[in-house]
């Protein structure tokens, strides 16, 4: 099971109270997680990545095990601790503005 922590605005939009749990197993990539997230919560389509290009939105960040995965390719495997559910994948709204 994969755990995902979403930023407040996306939790409100998707009416999610807490972490998201996704049933994924085996070798899991960043792209697999976003695919599963959008499948479970269609309202999130387009809010994390562009629906046409698949590119991460410029002001969204992916953090895992205290590392920035934002600029890794979608095929990049997430760390074992995330794949096992020990650690969540953090999807974060970037710091922007004053």
């Amino acid at each position, binding site marked *: 099971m994969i755990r995902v922590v979403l930023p407040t*605005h996306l939790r409100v*939009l998707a009416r999610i109270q807490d972490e998201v749990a996704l049933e994924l197993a085996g070798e899991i990539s960043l792209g697999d997680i976003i695919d599963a997230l959008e499948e479970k919560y269609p309202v999130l389509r*387009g809010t994390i990545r562009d629906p046409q290009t698949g590119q991460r939105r410029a002001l969204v960040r992916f953090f895992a095990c205290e590392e920035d995965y934002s600029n890794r390719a979608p095929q990049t495997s997430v760390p074992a601790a995330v794949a096992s559910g020990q650690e969540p994948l953090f999807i974060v709204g970037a710091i922007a503005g004053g």
Partner: protein
Amino acid sequence: MPATRLLVGTAKGAFVLESDAARRNWNINGPFFGGWEIYHMKGSPADPDRIYASQTSAWFGQVIQRSDDGGKTWEAVGNEFRYDGETGQHLWYDGTQHPWEFKRVWHLEPSADDPDVVYAGVEDAALFKTKDGGRSWQELPGLRQHGTGPKWQPGAGGMCLHTILVSPDDPQKIYIAISAAGAFRSDDGGASWKPINKGLKSEYIPDPDAEVGHCVHRIAMHPSRSNILFMQKHWDVMRSDDGGDNWREVSGNLPTDFGFAIDVHAHEPDTIYVIPIKSDSEHYPPEGKLRVYRSRKGGEEWEALTQGLPQEHCYVNVLRDAMAVDRHDPCGIYFGTTGGQVYVSADAGDTWTAAARDLPKVLSVEVQTLS
């Protein structure tokens, strides 16, 4: 049921204000979608409880919200705006060509007779339509692809399609306006388009009377006379009496003819309203006096309406979609400011009160006349 419902989109959420027909006391509901920019909200004329909202964010992109109960509860519907066919290129700030990129929805225009049909004006400029209550959106590509697109360019606020006017007597006739491309008309329901900018003069483009490239800020039309249009351009207030084929300036005695908003009295087709703004770099009222100007002759001769509006030290702006008129008698006039005030006149502009004073920056105001 309230007699009057105001839909206020702000930089940090949506507000729904309700009042009776007297329009003196207002209940403020919201914020809805707190923290998001609400570029526009508009109710369906065919079903006033059906309201659409454009919710957008630099972080998380575009969401379209829909309410079926007059703004009490909301459901996110379709948010995919895919350009149809060749993406194409337009003029960029540095003079080069730049591919069309969808950024946000500026304006939602529900159909007069079908609550599931809505037009959407977007940035980068294009016109979309839904026939299923916002679940899916299809571009009307004839506008973007009609030939002048490579000459369109973004204004300071982006290359936005911000005005959509559908003729009540002939829904095949649609006017739209784009900053900075100009005004366009379709006579076949949006399949084909032509620029309608003859008579506009814009000193900020190389050819001041070019076919396209004009920064039109807003067009208004009285529903009973769909061939007569009023325009607030970047500079100049303009009028057309032939469906946009020809324009003439009607700025007359305005203290400045720069501004964003323009609207028409609900029951007097020759009574129009503008809010002059000092200049294109000084986005506040001249002399620090917030004044609505009314012409009862369709332009040229204007009177200042000031009673109840701040007449000193006022340096707010009023954006293009932030003025509306209701259909009560006497007609109500509404506008919201970048300082978060929403002003109401229940007597066609003679006197004003504030329905709200401390909202976030107001991006849009629409009003529904419910009884």
